[in-house]
């Protein structure tokens, strides 16, 4: 671990919606320089947890620290070090890709010349230059993920938090995103991302946490969590899936 602080530390994060518990006390320490996968089935509380960790959703209890900076107490410094790509959140999608990047860059207080140069580079690497003056609202799902990633990377954050970065992305774009993230981690950054695609997590991550019903069920390095088995087996066992008997839904076959 480099430095004295973990890249992201969560302590006792909890959130209820209308009396229904979404996240029931999550503790997590993401070491700097790690590639951290947050796994969980739909509705496990992944998005809620990450939203609270990055300052988008105020937790009922608990707190979050980005490289030692309190997200809720010292948001300015914490947010400076943080790049976020939320899921299910619209971008300012009536801008073109270049306009959106310029907006994010200036909003982060970057120098205009640096913004121009980095935006051009990012659009080029992510194969979005051809989109030209197309508005982001008219982009395909994969293109939207890529421009979202570009916005999160633009200001060179130390910690990148991505919610479902591989959802609805075609294999070519997914490979591209993987490459970029890999290079980012090699260069000293830290990535936390949520997913329910086992292959991607197994391929990329150094550390894994499995979240279900709003609590962390398993946590550790990939090897520790996986043990001798495949990650998918561990996941299904932890989450408690149900196997079809073949009796029901008989009407599906005519």
């Amino acid at each position, binding site marked *: 671990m480099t430095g004295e602080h973990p890249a992201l530390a969560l302590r006792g994060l909890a959130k209820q919606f*209308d*009396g229904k518990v979404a996240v029931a006390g999550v503790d997590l320490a993401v070491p700097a320089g790690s590639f951290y996968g947050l796994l969980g089935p739909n509705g496990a509380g992944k998005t809620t947890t990450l939203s609270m960790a*990055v*300052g*988008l*959703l*105020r937790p009922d209890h608990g707190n979050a620290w980005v490289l030692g900076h309190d997200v809720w107490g010292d*948001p*300015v410094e914490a*947010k*400076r070090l*943080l790049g*976020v790509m*939320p899921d*299910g*959140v*619209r*971008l*300012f*999608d*009536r*801008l*073109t890709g*270049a*306009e959106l*990047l*310029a*907006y*994010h*860059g*200036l*909003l*982060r*207080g970057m120098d*205009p010349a640096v*913004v*121009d*140069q980095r*935006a*051009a580079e990012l659009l080029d690497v992510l194969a979005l230059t051809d989109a*030209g*003056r*197309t*508005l982001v609202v*008219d982009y395909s799902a994969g293109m939207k993920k890529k421009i979202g990633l570009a*916005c999160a990377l633009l200001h060179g954050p130390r910690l990148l938090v991505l919610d479902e970065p591989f959802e609805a992305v075609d294999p070519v774009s997914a490979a591209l995103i993987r490459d970029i993230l890999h290079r980012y981690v090699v260069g000293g950054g830290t990535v936390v991302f949520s997913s329910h695609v086992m292959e991607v997590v197994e391929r990329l991550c150094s550390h894994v946490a499995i979240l279900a019903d709003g609590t962390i069920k398993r946590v550790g390095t990939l090897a520790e969590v996986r043990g001798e088995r495949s990650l998918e087996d561990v996941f299904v066992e932890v989450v408690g899936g149900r196997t079809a008997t073949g*009796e*029901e*839904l*008989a*009407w599906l*076959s*005519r």
Partner: protein
Amino acid sequence: MAVPVSTPAERVRPVSPRHFVRLKLRVMGNNFRGQGWRIALFVVGVLVGLWFAAGGFLMFAAPGFADEPRYAVMAAAFGGGVLVLGWLLLPLVFFGVDETLDPARFALLPLSRRTLVTGLFAAALISVPVFAVLVAVAGLVVSAALLGGAVAGVVAAVGVVAGVLLCVAASRAVTSAFATMLRSRRVRDLAAVLLAVVAALLGPLQLVVLAAVRTADWDRLVGVARIVGWTPFGAPWTIGLDVAEGRAWAVPVKLLITAVTIGALLLWWSRSLESAMVGAASAAPTKTRQAPTGGAIAQLFPRAVGWARRDRFGALVARECRYWWRDARRRANLITIAVVGIFVPVMVNLGGAGFAVGQEGFESTGDPSPVLLSISMIFVGVLASVTLANQFGFDGSAYAANVVAGVPGRLELRARMTAFSVYVLPMLGLVSLIISGVLGRPEWFGVAAGALLASYGVGLAINGFISVLGAYSLPETSNPFAMNGGSGVAKSMLTLLSMVGSAAAAVPMVVAAGLLGDVWLWLALPVGAAYGVGAALLGAYLAGDVLDRRMPELLSTVTPRR
């Protein structure tokens, strides 16, 4: 244990409007679940609706109690006509249309267009305004029954129900068609031209109406009312009185007029509905006109804000400016301001002249006064600023970007006010020019502009607070007139509250116009500008502080629930 269904011809149960009505009630009910303040606002809305309904009821029923058939005809024809006109225009200007049941959600269901339209129409009838109007026009039934006996009353009841149906059909058809029109980016220029033409027509029309009112005696007005009674605007409301006056033959004819009109409106609606359903997903992709020029930053800043520094403030202003034009919902608001901003002052000031003539005989000059001018200008300024009452709602969940970047609240609000003013200030200047030109008093330009700036400024300040504290999510449809979840009444209440507050804060301008006389002609513009700018800055300063403390809460209130 399920049994495999092997019969290929499963019986499909027909879908009736009843299903839509129940769905709407269920959605409304679920919206209230666990939200005490929503229920409270809804109750307040119902009470306000009842208040207006009671007033309308008395107006419509009074001629019956007074035994005055002539006034009854006028009340029915003119009052009913105004109702239809109101349902036609008000949703476009003020309140939006309740889109609890978004037509696009039904796109994948195997429903015929006919089923869908009748269903949505039936669901549209379940709303507080419809209920209120029904109560009000029940006065016509009472009136007809008192004047013509039970039969006339029954006929009037039929007519009144038909009339309410007509109102709802008209509002749906017009908003839907207008929404489709504005959505297509190609047509927006056409729309602007069209609105300009309408605005230009208002002047002559105004003079005609004024002349008619001035010269007309009651007999003439009753004659006009009878003619209106034969148009779709008055037909459904007057049939009860026709029976009372012994013209039973008119009833089927007028009912036919009404029915044909409703049918035509529903047909029109179903046309635009289809394009709304199909076009929602792929609304006119932008053509890749030319290759982008310059760097990313140069592309972000429109020419109108080229003066802005390339920093956070500048970026916010530039993005907002782009949005006011590119977002159909916001553009519809801008167009509304432009049209109403011209229409209302012209009407009030020329109409005010008419009133003055009526009261003081024909010798008084009947000129509009600086006071009246200031009042009408304050209305325009307030109307312009109230557009920002839900400025964060326009962004929806995209506002998350600003939260993540940690934009300071004061900066955020100041930038939003600036960007909106880039569009509105030239408009306000134009309004002042036009109104002082139309009135033939160019020296009143300062009074008009001063009142506009003052009311617009205090409006910005008050709506800064409203937008932070009373934000609500807008549905993510492409219909710029859509409102969310059956609580339209409550939202309009908040808007009205903000308008009343802003208008009250701008009253000093009116007082000054009344007291200071000719000095005010020179002082109004600088004083109004200083007052407005000062108020707006103070508002941004104070409301920005509130915003800093509740950015995540604001984000979750403007994020549409799914």
